Each structure stands twice: as structure tokens, then as C-alpha cells.
């Protein structure tokens, strides 16, 4: 019996640009990135301390994100224990920049753990306004709270609730839904060609994602912005979910110009046609951005 990834490769061979390059890239380890926490230090000072610790790195398209070239993996970093850095994939910065939270706004992070995007949003908001960081599982909340603490953030409330049932008494300017997904964008192949980072399970993820996106949209104020993102390349978990929302709610996918190479959302797949607006979503392939494969859509509440 074929594993889900083999089936994925069969389905997407013609859709992924430079497919052979993608297959080669899967055998390379993912590069390591650190986000500098500008709430606790400034960029130049943080970089100076990292250099002092022997870390070699280079700039990325995001000013607070650095790509590590060489690190002695046995030696801990003082910068980490000071809360100056957060290991975060380049693609994980994309939904935060697409949402573009500003100081003073009220923002909901519906599936927040372990907190990379939450703490990044707090940083862009200069630790002002409000972030509600929610997750369903207590175990994951522990990591979320530890990261919020380590980064020294004061504007965040942590809640534990099923995202699909999150109570809608309070409406937000912006909502980030980094939905649970199959994680295909994260896959790597080991030397034997076996998949690493594969998440087993028989959960009906698209059903959960559709319930989550509808609730996330309902939690927005009129004129508010929702960013839906996943680290999978699977159309059923991405474009089909956006299509579902566009049919159920007065939502509009808005264009966003990412600072890295991207492809438009897929509007036709396996005989199914999706709403035109789905094409304004963005796909990020691992071999094009040298990070985790990602999908995101920026949605406005009309």
C-alpha cells in the first residue's frame, strides 16, 4: 500500500514548479533560522553577541530573521537563555507579515502553540495592544507559556479552548489561524528515502480546518483581517478550505506581495473548480524559499 506522501507526489508532480528540484531539495536538511527578539535587545547588539559566541549567519528578507551558516550544536547559546533569539523557520514569519499586526490592535491567535508566531506578533506590536493566544491541548500550552515568558511579553492572554468552539463575545481586529495540518511542507527524506517529520493519524483534517476557519472569521470585527496558514501543500487542506469559507461567509481573499518566491493558489484540482478568489492565496515551496513549504491566504471581512 502506498503511503500518503507517495500519493501526494503522484498528484502534485505536475503542480509543483521544478518538481525534480523539489525532490532533490527534500534530501537536504532544513536550514536553521533565528528570529531576534527586539523587545529585549536591538538587532546590532544581538548580532554582536551571536558573533562573539562563534555563530556564523547571514541576513534574510526579514530584518529580524537570520539564517545560521554554522553553529557548534553542542554548545548552548547565551542569547537563547537571555531570550534574545527564537528558532523559527523563514516560512513561519510569512503569516505574521501577511497579517501585519500593529501596536494597540486586538489580535487572536487561534491555534497558537508553541508560540513562534504569537511572540513574533507581540514583537511587531511592540508589546502593546492585546494578543489572545489560544490552543486546545494543555501540553502544547506549556510550551506556549514558556516561550511567551522567555521572550518577556506582557500583552498576551493565554486561553485553552477548542478553536471551533471559541466563544465569540469579543471581536478582534485581526485573527491568525495557523491551522493543524498534515505538515507535508515540513517533510524531508532521509538517506534511505524514508520520510522524516511525518505525522501519523487518521483525523479528518479538512473538516477541522473548515470549522476553525469559519469560527475564526466570525471572531473578526467588520473590516478585520484573517490570515489562514498551514505548513502543508495539500489542496484539500488549503484551497478547498478557503473555497468553503468564501461560500459560507462574506469573505474576500486579498492580494499580498510576499518578499520570497511564491506561486498562486490552485483554482482547479482533480476536476474540482474553486472560487476565483482562491487564486489570490499564496503557496511557498520548500525548494524555492529554502524553508518549510507553506500556504497562506489573507482574508478580509466585508
Amino acid at each position, binding site marked *: 500500500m502506498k503511503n500518503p506522501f507517495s500519493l501526494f507526489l503522484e498528484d502534485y508532480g505536475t503542480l509543483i514548479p521544478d518538481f525534480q528540484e523539489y525532490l532533490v531539495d527534500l534530501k537536504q536538511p532544513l536550514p536553521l533560522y533565528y528570529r531576534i527578539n527586539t*523587545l*529585549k535587545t536591538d538587532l546590532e547588539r544581538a548580532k554582536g*553577541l551571536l558573533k*562573539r*559566541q*562563534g555563530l556564523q549567519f547571514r541576513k534574510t528578507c526579514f530584518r529580524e530573521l537570520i539564517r545560521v551558516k554554522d553553529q*557548534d550544536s*553542542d*554548545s*548552548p*547559546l*547565551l542569547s537563547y*537563555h*537571555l*531570550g534574545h533569539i527564537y528558532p523559527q523557520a523563514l516560512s513561519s514569519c510569512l503569516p505574521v507579515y501577511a497579517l501585519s499586526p500593529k501596536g*494597540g490592535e486586538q489580535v487572536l491567535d487561534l491555534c497558537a502553540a508553541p508560540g513562534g508566531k504569537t511572540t513574533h506578533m507581540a514583537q511587531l506590536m511592540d*508589546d*502593546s*495592544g*492585546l494578543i489572545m493566544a*489560544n490552543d486546545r491541548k494543555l501540553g502544547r*500550552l506549556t510550551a506556549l*507559556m514558556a516561550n*511567551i*515568558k*522567555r521572550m*518577556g*511579553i*506582557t*500583552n*498576551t*492572554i*493565554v*486561553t*485553552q*479552548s477548542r478553536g471551533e468552539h*471559541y*466563544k465569540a*463575545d*469579543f471581536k478582534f481586529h485581526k485573527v491568525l489561524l495557523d491551522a493543524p495540518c498534515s505538515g507535508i511542507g515540513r517533510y524531508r527524506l532521509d538517506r534511505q528515502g524514508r520520510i522524516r517529520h511525518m505525522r501519523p493519524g487518521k483525523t479528518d483534517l479538512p473538516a477541522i480546518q473548515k470549522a476553525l476557519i469559519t469560527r475564526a472569521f466570525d471572531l473578526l470585527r467588520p473590516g478585520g483581517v484573517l490570515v489562514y496558514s498551514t505548513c502543508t501543500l495539500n489542496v484539500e487542506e488549503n484551497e478547498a478550505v478557503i473555497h468553503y469559507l468564501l461560500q459560507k461567509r462574506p469573505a474576500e481573499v486579498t492580494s499580498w506581495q510576499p518578499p520570497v518566491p511564491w506561486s498562486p493558489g490552485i483554482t482547479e484540482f482533480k476536476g474540482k473548480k474553486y472560487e476565483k478568489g482562491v487564486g489570490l492565496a499564496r503557496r511557498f515551496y520548500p525548494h524555492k524559499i529554502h524553508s518549510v513549504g507553506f500556504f497562506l491566504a489573507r482574508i478580509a471581512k466585508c
Partner: protein
Amino acid sequence: MEPEFFEPFYIYAFNRQAFLFRKQPEKILLPERSFVRCGLPFVRLVAGYLKPTTVFLQRFAETASRNIISLKWQDIITLCTVGEIVLSDDVLEQSGIEAPGYVIINTLGYALGAGLLLDGSRLLCRFPKAMKQALPRISKI
């Protein structure tokens, strides 16, 4: 720290710990039975003393003007491995600290966390366990 420092925050206490939470312009309605935590842990009540948390000091200690002890990196390693050090007269004099209690420990221009000063010159390490174990393993600084 000056009292004005605390103006932009609500301070609330929960379970022998006080938290700083950014003031909000409007009332916040939380989803029922879902609240876990809010804000940054700021001080903790330990044996009758208020101990500032490591995360608070690392973020805000630069606004503090008193009870700061600056140590060399080698002293930090000793503090972490042994658990305490005896401060020299020079260091004590420079810090200007006279009473026992919690102090801010600085090195290389960064606040690392808190220490407990006892008997005039004994400084006890009060860093989190993970940090206490990691710092002596740092090979280059």
C-alpha cells in the same frame, strides 16, 4: 525602578506570584472556563521575600538603578556550578548594596537573572535550573 515604570501595566497576583499585564483601552470578555494565564510573571513570594523573576529582569532590569551586581563571566560559571560565590569587597563596594536580599546579576552588560545576597558577601544563584546547567557549557563568549 521608578513607580512610573509600572503605569502602563495592570499588576495582579495569583498563586504567590504577581504578573504584569499591559493595560487595555476596553473591557475584555474572556471565553468561559478557558483562562490560563495573562501577562508576564514579575515577582514571586519566596520565604517572605519578593523574588523578581528571571524573565522580568532580563526584559526590564535596564530600568533598575539599585541592587545590581556585575560579575565577570568566570564568576558566573562558578556561581552556576557551585551554586554560590563569595563576593569580593571591590564588587560589593561597586554595587553599593548594604542589606541582604535579592539582587540583579549582570554580566557582559546583560541582566542574567536574580541572586540572593546573604551574610554580607555570600551570593546564591537563583537562575532557573535549565539556565544554571547550560551556562557552564557555553564554549565561547
